[in-house]
Structure formats: C-alpha cells, structure tokens
C-alpha cells in the first residue's frame, strides 16, 4: 500500500477541531465548519459521520490493559519511521541554514570601488574600514546601532538587511586579490573598537566613531 497522503493543514486542523468538540459534533457544529470550508463540505461530512459513530462506540469501550514492558514489532516499525523522519528533517534544516547563510544579501556587493570610496568619505572613515564592513569582519553586537542605521541610509538598504549582513559569518570577496600562493583564510571577526583601531583612521576619526 502506498503511504496515504496528507490533507492541507487547514483541513487537518478542522478535523482535529471537530474531533475535540464536546460532545461530538451535531448538525449545527458541522454546518459551522462547512460554512468555513465550503470546498471541503463532502470531506467534513464524511469525517463527521465516522466521528459520531466512533465516539458512540467509544462511550462504552474503555478497556484496561496490563502494563507493557515489551515493544511490539508495530511500535518498532513506527520508531524506525520516526528516526528516519527526524534525520530527514534535521538534514533539511542544515541544508536550509547553509543555503540561507550563502544567500544572505550583501548590500555592499554591487558597489564599485569608486562608490566604496565615496561611502567611506561620507561616513568619515577609510576605505579599509568600509571593506571590513563589506566583508563582515566586525562583530555586529559591538557595532553602535546608530552607525548601522547610518550605513543603511548610505546604502539605501533596509535596516533589517544591513543587520542581517553584519550578523552573518565573514566572507571573502570573490574578486579579492592576494599575493600568497594559497587563498587566505577568513579571520575571526574583530570588535568594533579593534576594527576602528586597526583601519588607518586618524585620531579624530577614531574618536568620533568610538563616541557613537
């Protein structure tokens, strides 16, 4: 037998809600659901009929079973499905996390060198400092919020995009040139203060940034 497919979440919820009604649904309650989901009227009616019969049968059917210490083969098979599904769900979540990390939009990505220099000027920092911002080399939680807002305005990007950009892991620009034989590894992120102190800024620029 092929696995039985599942209904849309809204219809599944309706089935659960009908089943959780106490006492079992009557004409009035079923009509409420049919009015809400007219496209599923036949399914809801069919379900309600089965539910009413099942509940009537259950009223007198509460056997007491002895304690169970062994796991039946049916439960073992269900546990196997649980583990397989859990593995699949975790794997999908991991793939999605990697994908989302990879596709986190870099609001600096489309800027030319000239534009980067212009932004550096307007922010009153060096190009080296702007590159650190671009390459996400500064810890976002050490960066003043006003400064992040200022950057968003300069880039004409939503503040959420800029915040997400700084929160993402550091990245190496694909166009970056390097002298070593091997591609340099991405270093760990600096604090805002460390970045300010190591970007060739004048004492006045440093003082301004650290006062934000």
């Amino acid at each position: 037998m092929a696995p039985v497919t599942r209904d849309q979440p809204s219809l599944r919820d309706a089935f659960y809600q009908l089943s959780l009604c106490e006492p079992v649904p009557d004409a009035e309650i079923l009509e409420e659901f049919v009015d809400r989901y007219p496209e599923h009227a036949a399914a809801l009616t069919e379900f309600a009929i089965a539910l009413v019969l099942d509940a009537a049968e259950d009223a007198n059917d509460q056997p007491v079973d002895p304690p169970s210490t062994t796991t039946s083969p049916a439960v073992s098979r269900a546990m196997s499905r649980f583990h397989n599904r859990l593995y699949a769900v975790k794997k999908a979540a991991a793939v999605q996390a990697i994908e989302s990390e990879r596709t986190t939009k870099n609001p600096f990505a489309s800027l030319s060198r000239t534009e980067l220099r212009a932004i550096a000027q307007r922010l009153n920092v060096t190009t080296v400092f702007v590159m650190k911002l671009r390459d996400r080399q500064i810890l976002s939680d050490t960066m003043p919020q006003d400064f992040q807002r200022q950057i968003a305005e300069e880039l004409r990007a939503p503040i959420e995009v800029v915040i997400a950009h700084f929160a993402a892991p550091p990245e190496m620009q694909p166009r970056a040139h390097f002298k070593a034989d091997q591609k340099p590894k991405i270093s760990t992120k600096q604090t805002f203060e460390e970045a300010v102190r190591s970007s060739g800024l004048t004492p006045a620029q440093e003082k301004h940034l650290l006062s934000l």
Partner: protein
Amino acid sequence: MPRVLSKRDRNGNQYTRLRNIEIAVAAALAQDIPTLCRRAAIQDRRSPEYLPSECLVHLIREAHRRDDKTTMTDLLPPLLERCRRTLDRKVSDRIPNASVLRDEILGQFSELFADDGTGDSPDELDFYEVRFNSAFRALRINLLRREKIARKGHAKRYAPLPDVHEVEPTSDDDVFARMSEHLRTPANQENTLALKNLIEAIKSLPADERDAVVLCHMMGYEVESEDPNKATAATHCGVTGRTIRNRLRRAAAKLSRFKENG
C-alpha cells in the same frame, strides 16, 4: 510552567490543557527518566502513577526542543504502544489491509514528533496535549477515509441512484426511537453490549443508508427542507428528500431485523 499552546479552537480561542494535565505535566517535569519510563508503561488510567498521554506528548515535545534524543527514544515507544492497542481495537480486521493501515497510522503519528516545530503545521501536536484520544481519533478516521478514497479511485461517493421503486412504508419511527433511546442512555453493564451491537449494526449498513441514519438520527439533520439555503441530509448527500426517506426505511428494516435477531 508548561509551554502555552498556539492552536485555536473553532471559535478562535487558544486551546488550553485541562487542569489535571497541567498539574500532571508540572509534576512529571520534575521527575527523572527512569521514573517517567516506568509510569509511561502503566496502561491503567485509575492508577495514581498513570501518566496521561497528553502529558507524555508534552514531555516528548520538550525533549525534541532540547534535542534530547535519549528522552524522545525512551518515552515515545510507550506512547506508541498505547496507540497500537487502540488501533488493534478500532481498525477492524474486516477492513482490507487492516494491519498495513494500522502501521501507516502509527507511522504517521510517530512522524508528527519528528516534524514538530517545522513544516506546514508546526504545532499540530498541540491538539494531542488538549485531548489525546480525540486528536488521535481524528488522525485515525482521516487516514482511513483517505485510504478508502484512494482505493476507490476517487469515485463519487454520493452518486444519486434513481428511486426505481418506492420502499413499502414501514414503522421505522419505532426503530429509530429505540435507537435514540439506546444512544442517550448512560453507559452501564446492561446496555453496553446492546449499544455496541447497535453501533456495529449501523456501521454494517450500506454507506448511503448508514449516512442517512447518522445525519438524521444521530446528528439532528432534517431529511429535507423547503428552504433552499438550509443544510439537510438530502443536501449533504446530494439527493432528494424522497431518496433519503427510502434509505432510512431500508436501514430501519435492517436494524429492526437486527434487533429481533440480536
């Protein structure tokens, strides 16, 4: 304090756990795994040590949120064992592929725990923390319904049949009056067997007759109405009122014979 549920009832109100479940959950959260495993294996609801299924669902979900695979693997099997016993009782061997269907229902239920917090219905298990048996009944009935549809290849269920001949009027009112009385009578040893037999008899009627009986005599629908906007057994089944009455008469004749034989 157990986590608040997010699913809502038909009136839009957030579901809440029953008071006794809240208390049981709070107590269980303070117990160690060996104690919980021992309690989870108890099937007798009257035992003071019995761990309600709603409570087990909560504990397994919390373990999932903590990524505590050991607790999940310890507590899910006893819950599945309870469900298996229910399925053995409720999915009759007369249904084609009964054992495969039981496996499918149990498997889909176990997968809800793996899917919890993800996918298109991340809080589906909330229903199971409110009233476990009712929620599991919904899953079971729905899967059986879908399997039946798949088996029949989406055949129109309520194909209206021509009323070739009118069934002779019989005193079906008496049969349904007795039936209603049986259904209303509180459960006791005396009527337990009679009620069980009655429900079995209704379930064994042809689908169109069974549906007419349930809609009219268990759910309170009128056979038909002059008001075209009013939902009736006839509108639900997509047939005329006369057809419904014929189905009810045929059903009454069978139920009456059943009573005499029973």
